[in-house]
Structures are given as C-alpha cells and as structure tokens.
C-alpha cells in the first residue's frame, strides 16, 4: 500500500514538474506586460475588449491587466511597490499626479516613442499636452474627461422644474437644488450631490480661479475667487442643506445616490456617462458646467505611463499597447462605452463613435466644452495638495471651520511643501 502510494506520488510530482516546465517554456515565449489600471464595471469591460483585440493582433504580447482601485489607490500601491521591486510595467496615472513619479525618474520618458508613432499627429492638442511634464512626454492619455453637470429629468419634472431650467451660475444651481429639496425632501431626495474633488476644481475654475496655476505654478488656494467658490460649495451642505453630508465624508456616496435616483443633480466626470445612462436610462440629462464668472473646466482623467525599471523589450511591448489603446478604433470603443472624451482626432470617423454621438444624447457635452478646457498643473506638490484637501473640505462643508481661514492656512502649508519638495 505504502510503496504503491509513493509510486503514485512520484508519478504525480513528475507530471507536475513537466507541466510546470511546459508552462514556463510557453510563458517565456511571450512578452508579458503587467498593467495596473482603475477600471471596473462597464469601463472594465470596455478595457477588456481593447486588450482582447490587441492580443489578437499581437500574439507574442500578453497584457496582464490588474484592477488596483481608484487613482489614489494606484498611487499608494505603486509607491510601496517601487522600493519592493514589485512595480508593474505600465500603469494608469491620473493627469495631475504623475509629475512626482516623472520627477523621481520612476516613469520612462516616452517622447521618442510618441515622436515615432502616428499618435504624434493624431492626438488632440489637449490630449498631447496632459502627458507632458517639463517638456517630456511621460504618459499617453487613455481616458480623458472634463466634469459635466448631470441631472435627473424625472426628479426635475416632479419638482416642477423644466428641462430648460437655467443652470449656468452658482445662483441657478442653488435655486434648482433648493426647489428639489423643498419639494421632494420628504421622499428622501436631495437637490444636488456634494461636489467631489474634480467637481470642486471645476467649480473653482468656473469662478475664474484655480487651485494651482498650471502655467506659473502659483498656489491659488487663498485667491478670493477660490475662497468664494469653496464658500458656495460648502454652503450647499451645511447652510442650505441641499446636498447630503454623506457625500462629503465619502465622495462616491453622492454619485451613488444620484445613480440610485435619490439626488437631482450631480457634477462629475464625463466618464460617468455610461454608468449614469445604464442606471437612469432616459431620465439622465447632461449639460455643460456652470460658468459663474467664466466658462472654464479642468481636464481630468488619466494616461498610461511605462515604468523605467522594466526591461526594454517589455517597454516596447507596453508602448505598442498604449499606442493601440489610443488608436481611433480603440478610442471609439472606449468613448462609446464610457463617455470619456475622444483623444484621437480620427475617432469621430469611426462607426462606433458616429453611432454614439447620434444615439446617446449628452455624450458630446464634454467634447463641446473642450474650447474652454484647461490643463491642470502636475508638479510633485499637486499630489500632496490633493491628498490633503479632502480633510479640509470636510471641515468647510460640515461647517466646522471658516472657509477663508482654512484656505489661507492651507495655501501657506502648500507653499511650504512645494519648497520642501523642490529641495
């Protein structure tokens, strides 16, 4: 019995070793690109389709795509993975937060790749610009967005608001939100979702200001127009009570409540278009961002960068994928499934994009906003500033501290941090 068992075990282990050797041999024939991204749900499915098409065309390259979490999670995990030598080969990086990684030499300069690729001429100017830091190209945009104003047509109607209700200024937004809350508050419906960080940045820009000037790098957190914008946003929650505080401590709660039909309006990335359409169907409407003092919106989203630690063969394969993902065909698939803006000038000629523009009302709002879209700064201090802003926003929105005090102090700290990072 014992001898039989040992012989059996020997056979099994022999087979296992052979299988293992076989796998290793097969795997070594391909180049595998480990790719970290932040897309789940419909976006994740669209990305999977793009990867599938790429792998079908490039049998020798395998894209090992891993959904890591949101942009913050990616930054955190990447930061820990680098000293542990466990970093991926390619990574999605939010457009304001890759500067630190470029600055520290973590990201590879993609300028030679881009210069030799059709993308050099095909990308829209805004898309090319978001990937450039200190004159070099570190990321190629994949999912570009601007914030837009979504509203729920059914809630508007029930609140006695027409679809043409003016929503172009802070005052207009407040009036509509107030009407919804007053009329439907008893049903647990609130007027507007508390703005998330991207929306806050957009509302500040629409008030003719910025958080950090993208050209000069000047810290503008304590500029009068920035303070005014934050005062308005905070008042939605704690003064007028037309936005739920739940969305202040957890930004996604506001979006989720909108998708669940519990909130009348939401300012969020155009990348939520697909999700909003599938959740609310024909009840969802999209309009441009309010132009309180000027019409201006931030360009958001992310691009794909390549790690400088990867082997050159893997880097070449990674760029091949990046180029494919930004090609008109892939970009049209991505645009039509998610609502993220086209980044390739030839995307609009693709049947999928033509169909989306014709059949999905509102999907073009972000594209039409491009005339007033501004790039955002990306020096290393932006990462620090964005990570620190959440707590301060909570203090302001929940009425615990005066907006002007908070922003004045925050501006000083950000200036000091910028100096420290420069050193």
């Amino acid at each position, binding site marked *: 019995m014992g001898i039989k068992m040992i012989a059996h075990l020997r056979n099994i282990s022999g087979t296992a070793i052979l299988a293992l050797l076989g796998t290793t041999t097969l795997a070594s024939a391909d180049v595998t690109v480990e790719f970290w991204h932040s897309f789940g749900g419909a976006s994740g499915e669209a990305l999977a389709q793009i990867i599938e098409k790429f792998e079908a065309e490039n049998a020798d390259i395998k894209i090992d795509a891993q959904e890591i979490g949101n942009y*913050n999670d990616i*930054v*955190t995990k990447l*930061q*820990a993975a*680098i*000293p542990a030598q466990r970093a991926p080969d390619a990574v999605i990086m939010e457009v304001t937060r890759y500067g*630190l*990684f470029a600055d*520290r*030499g*973590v990201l590879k300069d993609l300028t030679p790749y881009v210069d030799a690729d059709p993308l050099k001429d095909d990308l829209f100017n805004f898309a090319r610009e978001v990937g450039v830091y200190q004159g070099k190209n570190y990321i190629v945009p994949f999912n570009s967005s601007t914030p837009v104003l979504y509203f729920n047509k059914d809630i508007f109607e029930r609140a006695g608001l027409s679809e043409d209700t003016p929503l172009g200024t802070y005052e207009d937004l407040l009036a509509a939100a107030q009407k919804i809350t007053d009329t439907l508050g008893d049903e*647990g419906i*609130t007027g507007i979702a508390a703005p998330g960080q991207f929306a806050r940045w957009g509302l500040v820009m629409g008030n003719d200001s910025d958080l950090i000037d993208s050209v000069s790098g000047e810290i503008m957190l304590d500029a009068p127009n920035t303070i005014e914008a934050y005062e308005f946003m905070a008042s939605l929650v704690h003064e007028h009570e037309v936005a*739920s*505080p*739940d969305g*202040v*401590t*957890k930004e996604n*709660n506001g979006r989720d*409540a909108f998708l669940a039909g*519990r909130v009348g309006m939401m300012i969020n990335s155009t990348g939520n278009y697909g999700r909003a359409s599938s959740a609310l169907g024909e009840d969802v409407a999209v309009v441009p961002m309010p132009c309180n003092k000027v019409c201006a919106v931030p360009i958001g989203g992310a691009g794909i960068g390549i790690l400088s630690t990867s082997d050159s063969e893997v880097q070449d394969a990674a760029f091949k994928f990046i180029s494919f993902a930004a090609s008109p065909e892939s970009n049209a698939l991505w645009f039509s499934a998610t609502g993220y803006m086209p980044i390739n000038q030839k995307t609009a000629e693709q049947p999928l994009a033509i169909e989306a523009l014709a059949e999905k009302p509102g999907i073009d709002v972000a594209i039409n906003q491009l005339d007033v879209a501004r790039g955002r700064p990306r020096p290393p201090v932006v*990462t*620090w500033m964005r*990570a*620190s802003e*959440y*707590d*301060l926003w*909570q*203090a302001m929105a*929940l009425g*615990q*501290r005066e907006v002007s005090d908070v922003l004045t102090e925050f501006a000083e700290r950000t200036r000091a941090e910028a100096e420290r990072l420069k050193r």
Partner: protein
Amino acid sequence: MLRRITPYLFVLPLLAFIAVFTYVPIVQSVNLSMREWDFLSPTKPFVGFDNYRLLLDSREFWNALRVTAVFALFSVPLRLLLALFIASQLLRETWVSRLMRGALFLPAVTSTVAIGVVFSWVFSTDYGMMNALLTGLGLSKVAWLQEPQIALWVLIFVNTWKQLGYDIIIYIAGLQAIGTELYDAAAVDGGRKGHVFRRITVPLVMPTTYFLLMVSVIEAFQVFTIVDVMTKGGPAGATDLVVNMLYRVGFTLFDIGVGSALAVLLFILLITLAVIKSRVIGRKVHYEA
C-alpha cells in the same frame, strides 16, 4: 556539544522568522525615522531628530494622540465590562448559551472591511438604517459620521461590537477555570450574589482581565481598518487615530520619514503603557485561589 545546542536549533527557525518579520522592520523603522524619504528618491538623507521635532510641533499629531487616547479610554473598559457580564451569563452549558456564544463570536471572525462597509451604510445620514429608525419614531436625523462629536463614538461602538465576542470567549474560559468548591463554600456561608461576584469571581478572573486589558489596549492603539473604511480619519480629523495618521503621512503624503517617526513613538508609547500596567495592575493579579 550537540546535546547543548539542540534546544537552540529547535527555536532557531522561529527566531529567524521573528527576526526577519519583527526585529529587522523595527530597526529599519528607527533608521527611516531619521531620514527624509518619499519611497521614490534614490537617496535618503539623514536628518537626525527633525522628523520627531516636526511631529511634536504638529497639531495633527497631538490631535491623533488625543483621539486615540479617548478611543482606548472608553472602548477598553466598555469591552471588558460588557464581556465579563455577558460571559458570566453564558457560563452554563445549555444549547442557548452555546448558540449565543457562537452568535456573539461571529463578528470577531468577520472581515473588518465588510463590517466597516455595512456600518457605513447603517450610519449613513440620509440613506442609513439608524436614521430611518429615528425618523420613523418621529425624531430628527443624526449626522452619525459627519458630526465630529459623534463619529468617534460610532467607531467605538462598531469596534466594541466586533471585538466583544473574542473577549467573551476568553472570559468564559477564565470563569470556567474557577473551582466550583469556592462557590459552594460561599453558598454554605450564605454569601450574596453580588458579594460572591466581587469577592470570588473578580479576583480569580483577574489573570484573564489582565491579559485582555493588555491585548485590548494594544489593539485600541492599532485600530486602522474600521477607520479607513468608515471615516478615513474624518470628519475634519475627529476620528484620526494614530495608525490612520501614520498611514496618511507615510502612504498618501509620501513622507516615510515622519511616518516612521510616528511608528517609533507609538511603539515607545505602547511599551510604556505595558510597563505601567504591569507595575500597577500586575501586582493585583492572583493566579491561585
């Protein structure tokens, strides 16, 4: 010779494990606490005690320490008192008490992240079960996780709910170890229930209480997951426990030097607390009747 070194050979694997995963990181943390580093830079310049000075001068550090102290001060006694009371009620071996022990122990083996997510929704201001209950009773909503004076108490409640089952099981083991002859003697002498509990149960369960006190204080100073999932230290720092601050400084603000300094200070604090506890309470621990 071989006979002499054999015991050491047996403990060597474990020692090596502890050295690699405990002592080396501690030494490395002390080293990093005196350097300026953001995980990405190739150099780690030595800055002496600058990181400690920065921490001790910062409002955030003292706030985190205060919040953690309040958390520990209220959650630990609450846990131990409740656990001792419930354990004394579930001591008898009946099917009901066995069922109750299992039910109460379940949260202790449930994923903390799952608990955090569920309770985030339970305590949501506009969409939560608690406020639905309150408004159903004609009361007004409470901003459970947005009101700084309340959010920490919600975390204390959730943490107590999660850990209570473990404390109960340990207490039951401690209570069952007390010989019945002592209770029989007390009954013969006409001892009242409260008197018996105070004079027999409490002193003889002291080793268990001491163990749980040690463990729960350390645990209270290391709470992170519940905070990260439910509040991220907010609103406005009201639930910013020390480990949450450590994570924020080290992993979202990229300041691994200051983060390590905070870890070292926390380590020193916990050692100091353990020594104080052993000096003050350790003497009152009776191991025999």
